[in-house]
């Protein structure tokens, strides 16, 4: 039987950093997509924003966030998907995130699930469970990530896109 959890592409950020991480021309041959990100920001804002087909519109989200001292739930409009470690965090630490995108080629709205952490041995670290929705019926053919506050991804940040087939 075929292996159905397939690495489609990997991006590793080189010296000098990168303004975004992007996967383009995603084949429509899979059922779901999984993205694993290990990232660090060049600035103090650790938020990573997701974009489908270059669109940053029609995203909404619910986040359950723990920061080491309390837990809270937030619901907002706008895209968000993952944590990086901030430039102010312990050196050489990278935030990790797992994003699951179901039925990315369908004509339904696109739902995604994200688990994100930014442990850094500091006074505050974050872990987040996220539910997100892109209210758009277009098939997803590209996924890109940008850092919050127009920061860049630091060198050694990585992201890998996997495809999962249900048959």
């Amino acid at each position, binding site marked *: *039987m*075929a*292996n*159905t*959890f397939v690495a489609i592409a990997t991006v590793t950020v080189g010296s000098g950093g990168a303004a975004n991480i992007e996967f383009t021309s995603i084949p429509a041959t899979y*059922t*779901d997509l999984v993205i694993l990100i290990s990232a660090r920001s060049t600035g103090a804002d650790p938020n990573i924003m997701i974009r489908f087909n270059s669109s940053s519109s*029609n995203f*909404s*989200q*619910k*986040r*359950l*966030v723990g920061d080491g001292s309390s*837990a*809270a*739930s*937030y*619901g*907002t*409009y*706008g895209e968000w998907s993952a944590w990086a470690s901030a430039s102010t965090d312990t050196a050489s630490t990278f935030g990790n995130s797992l994003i*699951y995108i*179901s*039925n990315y080629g*369908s004509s*339904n*709205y696109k*739902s*995604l*699930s994200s*688990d994100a952490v930014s442990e850094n041995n500091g006074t505050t670290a974050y872990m987040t*469970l*996220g*539910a*997100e*929705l892109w*209210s758009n019926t277009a098939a997803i053919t590209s996924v890109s990530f940008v850092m919050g506050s127009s920061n860049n991804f630091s060198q050694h940040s990585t992201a890998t896109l996997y495809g*999962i*087939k*249900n*048959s």
Partner: protein
Amino acid sequence: MPATYEPIATTTLGSAQSSVSFTSISGSYTDLVLVQTFPNSQTTGPYTSIQFNSDTGSNYSWTFLTGYTNAESNRTSNASYIRMGVSSYLANAICITNIMNYSNTTTYKTVVGRNNFGAPSGSMQETQAQVGLWRSTSAITSITISRVLSSTDFVSGSTFTLYGIKAA
């Protein structure tokens, strides 16, 4: 690379149904992953639940950690199924459930899940982490997914896929 994440079976509903079953599950994997999705046309609906090996006894329990209006946690013991969340409004929901060491005949069976319900309004969404337990040492050979707490069926377009994962 060995094939370690294999689709065992998938069902896409062509019409409304109250339940879906996966039967004759091979014992040749280490863990199972169940992925359920519900389209945005499911404007009202039930909760989703699972039972193993057609056991309808009070042998299940679960605990939720949920982000909704607030962060909250709740649990139920001695239930007749494991409820998978997310909401009575299933539109755009994803439920991903990992079923650990499902074929052993020594221990009770534990599941770990992530249940998400997405709505165009951010304030309406819900995200959830879950643990569930089936108090049986039997190997899991079948899974039944049913609607609960509502008479509304799962709508056409809902998908249910079971994957098998092998340890190296």
